[in-house]
């Protein structure tokens, strides 16, 4: 049997190529789906903001509602874990009433690990 010819037949090649793509993608997901969302909060001058509250909003069928919140550490860093979401928004607020713009997060798969670009509080 001519294996090269069999493998290059379109009824074999296309499903095989799709299976490899899907398999590869799922393998990538397995190693990157801890649900970690992390980043830093800065002020307008670029300095890290410690003690700022970062709120995560999850989308329901019609709007975004608050799901979790956390506080930034001394380096202005925050971290959410076990976030089983693929879409949401992030916002940072400080004790003196300042806040950042809401940042829309769209992930390629549920619980994707992601480093978010700095949230700027003005």
């Amino acid at each position: 049997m001519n294996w090269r010819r069999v493998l290059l037949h379109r009824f074999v090649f296309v499903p095989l190529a799709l299976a490899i793509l899907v398999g590869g993608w799922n393998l990538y997901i397995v190693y990157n789906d801890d649900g970690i969302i992390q980043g830093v909060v800065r002020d307008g001058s670029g300095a890290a903001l410690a003690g700022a509250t970062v709120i995560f909003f999850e989308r329901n069928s019609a709007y975004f509602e608050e799901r979790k919140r956390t506080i930034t550490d001394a380096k202005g860093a925050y971290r959410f874990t076990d976030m089983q979401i693929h879409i949401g928004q992030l916002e940072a607020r400080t004790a003196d009433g300042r806040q950042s713009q809401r940042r829309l997060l769209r992930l390629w798969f549920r619980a994707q690990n992601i480093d978010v670009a700095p949230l700027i509080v003005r």
Partner: protein
Amino acid sequence: MRRAPTWPRHAIMLAVCLLMLVPFYWVIKTSLTGENIYAWPPSIIPVNPHLFNYVDVWYLIPFPRYLLNSVIVTIMAISGNLLFNTAAGYALTKQFPGKRWIVLLLLSCMLIPFQATIIPAYLITSWLGVLNSWLGIALPMLSTIICIFIFKASFEAVPRSLIDAARVDGLSEWRIVVRILLPLSKPAIATNVILNFIWSWNAFLWPLIVVRSPDMQTLPLGLARFLSVMEDTTGALFAFVVMVLVPGLTIFLMAQKEFIRGLTSGATKG
């Protein structure tokens, strides 16, 4: 004699092809951008295209479950069609009393729209106890009359002497079908597979009636459900449409040669 140039004909054909592809392009473009389809003037080129609408569809509704249901029902419908249509098509190549009336009955049944037979079909399905199941969804699609005639025409094109020789060699009727007729009827098989794939993949009315639980819904039902529960979903809706269409399009593109050959075989004699 000087031949007329072919480029004007090709240019017209190309323009018609592009015109035919515009709706597909528009669906794909909207699925990538989510822009308002009623916006004026419409943007021909997608603005900020992305694939996140596809991710939304995958997670906002149980898309894998709908896909699984559609795949299983389609496989059942195709398998049933290949089995029953082959048997019926072979039987109709034989001479037996009342054959003419059976052919007439089958042809006249093709004139009755499926919608007119839905109530008896539902009652039969209920009586068999297969409502809200894969078998129940596939049941009316397990055999289709037009595909019986496709097999009949294909089997009749096989030389009689070949079948007689197989019979002399001691092959039973089923082995004649499996070993002799089916290998010579690949275009008919391909036509059966493709037509039944399209019909069962796109079926909406019958699954809507026979399915009761959300877990058993197929992709077309999922599309309707998606529309009813989500708001502000233009992009995701069109992404869903593309995801429903892609398997069928892929199979058609892979098998178009067999499909066209199967539909045109027997169209001319000699």
